């Protein structure tokens, strides 16, 4: 039963993480280069623009769900299973989501990178 809870938590973490990453990526692209904006307009303008962005708020919500699910997952299962499993599945999930939802140009190079990293992370747990 504990095994099922652990994998349930892993599934929730992966879905929430991918959703949060995609929303954050969209929000930050719309805010623009933070370093440049900081130099031109100051820190408060940067923080204000980021915090008021609706996608940022939704992204935070998704990441909060992922964070608390991670705490549950870590208490039910070994960190050597939960951390690499969520990380490697999130890498592949993000590559697919970024291509479909963010229209990023995920070329062969990026697919290979995502798969290599996902396999590498899974092997670290072995």
């Amino acid at each position, binding site marked *: 039963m504990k095994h099922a809870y652990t994998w349930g938590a892993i599934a929730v973490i992966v879905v929430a993480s991918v959703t949060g990453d995609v929303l954050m990526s969209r929000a930050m692209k719309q805010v623009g280069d933070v370093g440049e904006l900081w130099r031109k307009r100051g820190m408060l303008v940067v923080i204000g623009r980021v915090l008021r962005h609706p996608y940022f708020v939704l992204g935070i919500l998704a990441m909060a769900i992922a964070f608390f699910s991670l705490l549950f997952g870590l208490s039910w299962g070994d960190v050597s299973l939960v951390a690499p499993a969520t990380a490697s599945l999130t890498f592949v999930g993000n590559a697919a989501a*970024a291509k479909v939802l*963010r229209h990023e140009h995920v070329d062969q190079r*990026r697919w290979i990178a995502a798969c290599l990293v996902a396999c590498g992370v899974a092997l670290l747990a072995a």
Partner: protein
Amino acid sequence: MTFRKYLVLAGVAVFGSVGDSLLSRGMKEVGNISIHNLQAVFLAVRDPWIISGILLLFAFFAAYMTALSWADLTYVLPATSVGYVLLALIAKFILHEQVTPGRWLGILLITAGVGFVAGGPALTHAGHHDQLADHAEVASVGGKS
């Protein structure tokens, strides 16, 4: 890509991996959380290891958001996965843990993945369109006021 931008990517890798380790240490101290006592997860936030982990994850978050403002998601994630390699090296040389051949192979694959993505462009067309759309939005709002 400037030196400052590489520094931000390094920050994402270091803060993220060390923050996760602190959280893991803290949750092991707190112990198992029963499905019938889910509110116990909120009490866990009082643990000093968890607090330190959360502080480092805030630093990770600031660096991550900064990186996402000028690079694609599919560039930032593999490029910052070097944090896993860092953790394995700390485990081997500082904590004197045993790193199995399987783990060395894992490190090799991650390093290859980082090398693959780092050789390509950090930002593809989508981000540029977003910025243009946003600038148009800001201009129209500015025009109305």
